[in-house]
């Protein structure tokens, strides 16, 4: 226990300010959290759906929960069921073998819901988007299967870009 406590103490708080344009200083962060509460009446919950990614996008979505980005500390939480979610964070391309599952997850998410398409594959742009367009096994971009509110391009998008995208969706 002692080494653990020592380490926690020495590590300190690493959380960084939110990115430019989304919110920088603490005041802006407070405003944003207020906004989330006002719009949603509570913290934001996200269901992540991998509809056919190369798992690179997932690595960066995982990183959102590291202490530098501290997503949960900002009142944004990943949940296990789409029924508990305000937002679907979807990576792609959408494979034909996942098309039905993605539609079901979308239908199970209560209204009003937000959909954020993640990555060049999910948005159908850039090099990766070109490499993953529709074919016999793939529907291509997320928007070809479910309506999308916000797109976060990148291959994979950095955690900062993801954070910005999630906040942009909430602002809508």
């Amino acid at each position, binding site marked *: 226990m002692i080494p653990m406590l020592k380490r926690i103490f020495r590590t300190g708080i690493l959380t960084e300010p939110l990115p430019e344009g989304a919110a920088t200083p603490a005041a802006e962060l407070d405003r944003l959290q207020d906004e989330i509460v006002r719009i949603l009446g509570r913290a934001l919950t996200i269901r992540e759906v*991998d509809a056919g990614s190369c798992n*690179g996008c*997932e690595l960066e979505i995982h990183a959102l929960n*590291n202490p*530098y980005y501290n997503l949960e500390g900002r009142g944004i939480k990943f949940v296990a069921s789409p029924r508990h979610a305000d937002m679907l964070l979807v990576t792609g391309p959408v*494979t034909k*073998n996942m098309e039905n599952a993605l539609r079901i997850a979308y239908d199970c998410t209560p209204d009003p819901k937000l959909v954020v398409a993640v990555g060049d594959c999910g948005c159908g742009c850039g090099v990766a988007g070109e490499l993953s367009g529709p074919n016999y096994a793939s529907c291509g971009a997320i928007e070809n299967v479910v309506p999308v509110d916000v797109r976060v391009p990148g291959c994979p998008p950095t955690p900062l870009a993801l954070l910005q995208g999630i906040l942009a969706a909430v602002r809508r």
Partner: protein
Amino acid sequence: MKLLDEAIEFTSQPGVGAPVWRGHAEDGIELHAFAAAVRRADGRMAAIWGEDRRPHGAGFRLHCVFGLNEGHAWVSLDLPAANPVYPDLADVFSAANRMQRATRDMVGIATAGGDQRPWLRHGAWPADWYPLRHDAGPGEGFPNAPSDYDFVRVGGEGAHEIPVGPIHAGIIEPGHFRFSVIGEKVLRLEQRLGYQHKGVERRFIGMDVAQGARLVGRISGDSTCAYAWAYAVAVESAAGIEVPQRALALRALMLERERIANHLGDLGALGNDAALAFGLTQFMRLKEDWLRMSDRLFGHRFMMDRIVPGGVTTDLDAAALAEMVEQCDTIGRDVKELRAIYDEHPGLQDRFLTTGAIDADLARELSLSGMGARATGMLLDGRAWRQGYEPPAPYKALGVRPITDDRGDVAARVAVRFGEIFESLRLLRALAVGLPTGPVRVDCAPTAGSGLGVVEGWRGEVLVGVELGADGRIARCHPHDPSWQAWPALEHAVMKDIVPDFPLINKSFNLSYTGADL
């Protein structure tokens, strides 16, 4: 030359990659006999894929790669256009089962007998349409019909099934797990994968080698360097190109950085799955520091598109290397401290020890490679010398120490991951100090030919087979992920454990869905 005293005649593949011998079986009987000899010699079934050669006036071709102690034997077998059938190899190597079924779904060449259930084909295209046949057409517009899958039923009083997925509870790739349980005890797990199948192999056909490099780096994002390197070796061997020594060293440097990044993330997640959130926070922090350094050094957090046929795209100067070595020292100290905390945490050890165990006999039977195999005590690491095997450059000069642990459980996989972080940190320092001078890239003008690249990725052995046409474009490319062999190992590892331990056991392997679904 002959291998294992079998009939097939082999020649050695040129180039500086891991040793590969190529041979051609006269018929299915010869292939089956060779497979049996490999099995007797404790070798492995490394990969299987098929190819449509009818445009060349031939029939179909089956490719089988076997892992031998000395290196890899790549055996091809020609099959007639009319009735392309070959003997089932799954009676020798159970690992062949899913690969053979995928080969049938993709190219339409099938085994005589054996398991005929589809694997990658769910319901998105008809059973008599094969995406990798040249006359297949675009294949768009098929109805996407939901399909049933013939899971093996477990009977008996009180036995019931728990279906999980394809969408799982966490932030993870899709796949379906069918547990047969009595109470909380797992009697059997059967996986149904293929949800990540996005037609990657079909996309390769007709690409130029530069495009192919970008696609191969996006097959499994967590192993982008391993794939890009294996692909580069295959293309360079086909084109007869020699890569500068400095490029080889920089490739190894990226591969070891990739290994450490994944082990750091998984060690954190393993702590978390055993209810130690402290571990997740600490390791995710180290991983973030690590990825930021990769970004500073190579301009990308996962170093995508940095390894290309002909060399690497990014060079490092002395200042960058010094910065990297300094970070190796601090991260090494932190990981050492965290290892002590993990080792001495009774709650954590209670969850890790004896959970999800497999033994070396099973690992051999399943043709398992990589970290999972070494965690059963097997001395199998493509980067390390062993009797009769010479590792490829630059590893042969580095004296890589393979990390093993013979317990075979979650604790062993945790221990191997810790050990591999320290060993890779040592390799990074050695590579930085001894980095050869000279260029990092040469021109890679492709010519017709074929090659196979084998790279020891963080999970295990990544293979890429490439065939270039007369126009220098890709006629066929088959990437093979070590997860093919490791998924069945996971099925065995959860047996007799309890359902709530599944996430922990699963994480200890952390297999790629996309790498095997393609």
